[in-house]
């Protein structure tokens, strides 16, 4: 069994669903994490705002001289070093706290805001994001109360890490899903291969059924039962056909033998001619009976097991060798056109392919006019064609011509078993080859495409 390509997987419903679910799941996780982040950030901001407003309120209600001490005390208790306090004179001069300057962009309305500030404001290097408010105390001094938003940044980083982890998990789960989707594909490929084998005559092949008992197994069981039934029926038909053959052939053999004895007994008498005529009639009957059985034998056969490599060029040479003198009798040119380079060998039954071509060439010679032309050719493909310049087959009849004993148009006056083309069609079908008959007045072409459809 060949490996399954990704491009093949893409066509399967499972594969597409897995990808779709993977994509949807990824989006949901991102949306959820984002939501958690914003809610958490808002909650933390609310908490910070409450603290800032409480500290601002304390500074409003305590006596003005106590404010620097309050600030110092608050800063002392801030072990995480995230608090920002700054007390400035109405002219903006520094009075107390860890903030040496008022950050730009603040509105002095006592409402907390998030801003990015130069950390030099609080004696550190770099930039940071703070939540702060600026208010004017009863003594007209300006109070800055703030807190670094480091917590929110930390939470964001945690959530981003979680998101990255989730993305990794999603990718792994999706890949696992894709891998799982390949399993049914492989099984469908097996089913396809077995179906082709059954179509080509290996009626004994069955679909694999796994222990999973999934929908494919259920389907395989149904088809296997159907194939069992078909095989059984085919064996019945074959058995009946063998039985008919046996039961008819034996009496016909006896009849032929009795006529043979009668021929000897009547030798030299007038009855001998009649007996010989009767023998010829029986022979004709036997010949048609044999030909008809031949079509059914080929159609019902399971001979592919016995197929081997067949050199088509060699068969064509033999046919040409056999029929060139027959064509010559009527001044018909029997041309043989073989490719200059080998077209390779085909898998088939040499004896049956010989029989098919013999029937085609025999027909072509029968229908070609005296001094006409029949061309037997082999081309790359490989494709074999037999062309004659006989009267042609009418379009109404061309699809009927492969039916046993159909003798339309010009065929009525030409001797033959009437099953030649049926045999060709049966042999082509057995090999999985296409057989095509095309005709216009003055040109009939039979083509055998010697490759599997």
């Amino acid at each position, binding site marked *: 069994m060949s490996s399954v390509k990704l491009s093949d997987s893409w066509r399967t419903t499972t594969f597409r669903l897995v990808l779709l679910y993977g994509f949807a799941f990824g989006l949901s996780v991102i949306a959820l994490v984002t939501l958690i982040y914003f809610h958490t950030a808002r909650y933390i901001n609310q908490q910070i705002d409450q603290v800032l407003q409480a500290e601002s309120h304390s500074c409003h209600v305590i006596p003005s001289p106590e404010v620097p001490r309050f600030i110092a005390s608050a800063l002392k208790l801030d072990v995480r070093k995230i608090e920002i306090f700054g007390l400035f004179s109405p002219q903006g001069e520094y009075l107390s706290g860890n903030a040496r300057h008022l950050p730009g962009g603040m509105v002095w309305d006592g409402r907390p805001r998030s801003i990015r500030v130069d950390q030099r404001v609080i004696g550190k290097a770099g930039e940071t994001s703070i939540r702060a408010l600026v208010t004017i105390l009863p003594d007209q001094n300006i109070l800055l109360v703030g807190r670094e938003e480091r917590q929110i940044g930390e939470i964001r980083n945690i959530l981003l890490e979680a998101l990255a982890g989730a993305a990794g998990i999603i990718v792994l789960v999706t890949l696992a899903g894709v891998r799982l989707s390949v399993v049914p594909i492989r099984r469908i490929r097996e089913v396809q291969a077995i179906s082709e084998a059954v179509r080509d005559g290996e009626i004994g092949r069955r679909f694999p059924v796994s222990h999973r008992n999934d929908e494919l197994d259920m389907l395989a069981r149904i088809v296997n039962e159907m194939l069992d039934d078909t095989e059984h029926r085919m064996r019945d038909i074959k058995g009946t056909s*063998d039985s008919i*053959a*046996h039961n008819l*052939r*034996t009496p*016909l*053999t*006896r*009849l*032929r*033998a*009795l006529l*043979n*004895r009668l021929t*000897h007994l009547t030798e030299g008498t007038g009855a001998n001619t009649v007996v*010989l005529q009767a*023998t*010829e009639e029986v*022979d004709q009957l*036997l*010949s048609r009976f*044999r*030909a008809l*059985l*031949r079509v059914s*034998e080929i159609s019902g*056969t399971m*001979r592919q097991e*016995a197929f081997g490599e067949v050199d088509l060029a060699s068969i064509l040479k*033999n046919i040409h*060798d*056999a*029929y060139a*003198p*027959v064509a010559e*009798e009527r001044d018909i040119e029997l041309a043989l056109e073989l490719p200059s380079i080998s077209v390779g060998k085909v898998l088939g*039954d*040499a*004896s*049956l392919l*010989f*029989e098919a071509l*013999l029937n085609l060439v*025999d027909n072509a010679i029968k229908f070609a006019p005296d001094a006409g032309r029949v061309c037997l050719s082999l081309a790359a493909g490989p494709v074999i064609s037999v062309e004659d310049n006989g009267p042609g087959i009418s379009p109404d009849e061309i699809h009927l011509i492969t039916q046993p004993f159909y003798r339309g148009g010009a065929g009525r006056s030409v001797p*033959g*078993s009437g099953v030649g083309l049926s045999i060709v069609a049966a042999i082509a079908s057995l090999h999985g080859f296409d057989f095509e008959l095309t005709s216009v007045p003055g040109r009939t072409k039979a083509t055998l495409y010697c490759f599997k459809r």
Partner: protein
Amino acid sequence: MPRILTIEDDEITAREIVSELDSHGYAVEWVASGEDGLCKALTGEFDAITLDRMLPDCDGLNIVTRLRQEGRDMPILMISALSDVDERVRGLRAGGDDYLTKPFSPSEMVARLEVLLRRNRSVLQQTLLKVGDLELNLLSRSARRAGQDLRLSPTQFRLLEFFMRNAGQVVTRSMLFEALWGYSFDPGTNVIDVHVNHLRKKVEQPGTSPLFQTIRGTGYVFGQTE
């Protein structure tokens, strides 16, 4: 006188086989069951066997296989109502020497049996075949009749070789077809007759005696007529 064993369950067919072989000078013994047939065949008293493929008590294939396993190498002509090519291949693979499908013409049966018997006596090693004043040199691939070289095509050469190897015996059209192209089936056409006629014209030049005799409904006998 060659001794032939006929194993055939159908009495009328058997009687005809016996009568036909008898008229050709063979001593024929007939048995109707496969088991008796096998016992008789194992005695080694027979030069050839005609064997029905489908017998009521056993499969003809088993008899062939058993005989070959026991080292009996007499020619066996299998006769069967099963004409499927697979059956033929199976019969030949089991060890049968030739396969004839019912309904058959008795003369075809005798012709094939004679070829098998003759093959056993073997003229295969000969490189120069002679029939009357006709000579066929298999090494130089040349043919001469009454001192005159005959110009034969490769197919005509093979055809003449088969006729000369089986001179004096009836050879059927399907036997000739098989000898020329290696495929065993009745083409149901005049292909063989045309080839024989062309060969005949080259071999039977004015002033020479006829060598080909047509047997109506069967085939040909090659050789000098008395």
